[in-house]
């Protein structure tokens, strides 16, 4: 069972209160009609499935009902950080490889 820090509620909550909502930082193409089938397909269907550090959207469905982002290791389940929508992660696969954590 994970304890997840909701950046809006400002405290750790039980995993039961949350739903995982898939990969974070996916933006809808600004001009859908100008997309090739491949570009639209990538946006619509294709997701990263990394072994290790991943950025995910989570939903505090039983709490404040806000979406937020999480940097999590898909192997160890370690949660590095959670951050509000619109913010960028401070921990990435690159930053960890570079020795900063």
């Amino acid at each position: 069972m994970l304890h997840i820090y909701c950046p809006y509620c400002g405290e750790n909550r039980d995993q039961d209160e949350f739903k995982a909502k898939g990969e974070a930082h996916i933006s809808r193409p600004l001009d859908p009609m100008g997309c090739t089938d491949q570009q639209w397909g990538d946006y619509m269907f294709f997701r990263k499935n990394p072994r290790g550090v991943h950025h995910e959207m989570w939903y505090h469905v039983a709490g404040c009902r806000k979406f937020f982002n999480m940097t999590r290791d898909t192997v160890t389940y370690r949660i590095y950080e959670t951050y509000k929508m619109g913010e960028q992660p401070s921990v990435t696969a690159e930053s960890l490889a570079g020795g900063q954590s």
Partner: protein
Amino acid sequence: MSEVAKAQVVEESSAAVSKVAVLQQRAGAGVQAESPLHHVGLDHLALNVHQRGGVALREKKLLGHLVLRGNSANASLLKGIKKVLGVELPLAPLSCSAKGTTSIQWMGPDEWLILVEGGSEYGIELALREAIDGHISLVNVSGGQTVLELSGPDARKVLQKSTPYDVHPGSFPVGKCVSTVFAKTQVLLQRTGEDSYEMVVRRSFSDYMWLWLQDASAEYGLVIKA
């Protein structure tokens, strides 16, 4: 989107608030209002003078419930709330503000639950719409939920059996309110005193809550209060 279409959207959204149709949801005298736990007959059960136990349950029925959504950076929102309700809009997460029979609970950074005396919610909704400029949402949900009060020396033990939230006084001081999982449903839980708690419960889950609370408090003894 074309420029014309964009302009229309902007125009519609700025006028949206003033065009809202507000409904008086109370049927008025002559029609008996029934709370979500009406069928249980709590008032009748409360008459039993032989009740003993460490947990007491009371339904604070038929209050006015308004859900407010808006941007706290909108100064008119803060001013309008203060003017109409006489209390500040609570901006700190998991906090609430109350005065007399009126209370506002923080539900999210842009969402609040306003509880007022039953029957006053229609006038208050109209007054708030008048007092607040800008884009807000204000919905009267009085018929959709009810408030249950759990109190007594063993009330905390009942909560600990029911929710994963840490209700120890160290993390759940008086005045704090959280939205969390409770049994197989969700509640807005507030600690209203040393030994007392209030839960906002969905109408459709109120009977389930009633059954759950009877079972969870059985070992301590449940006392029904009117």
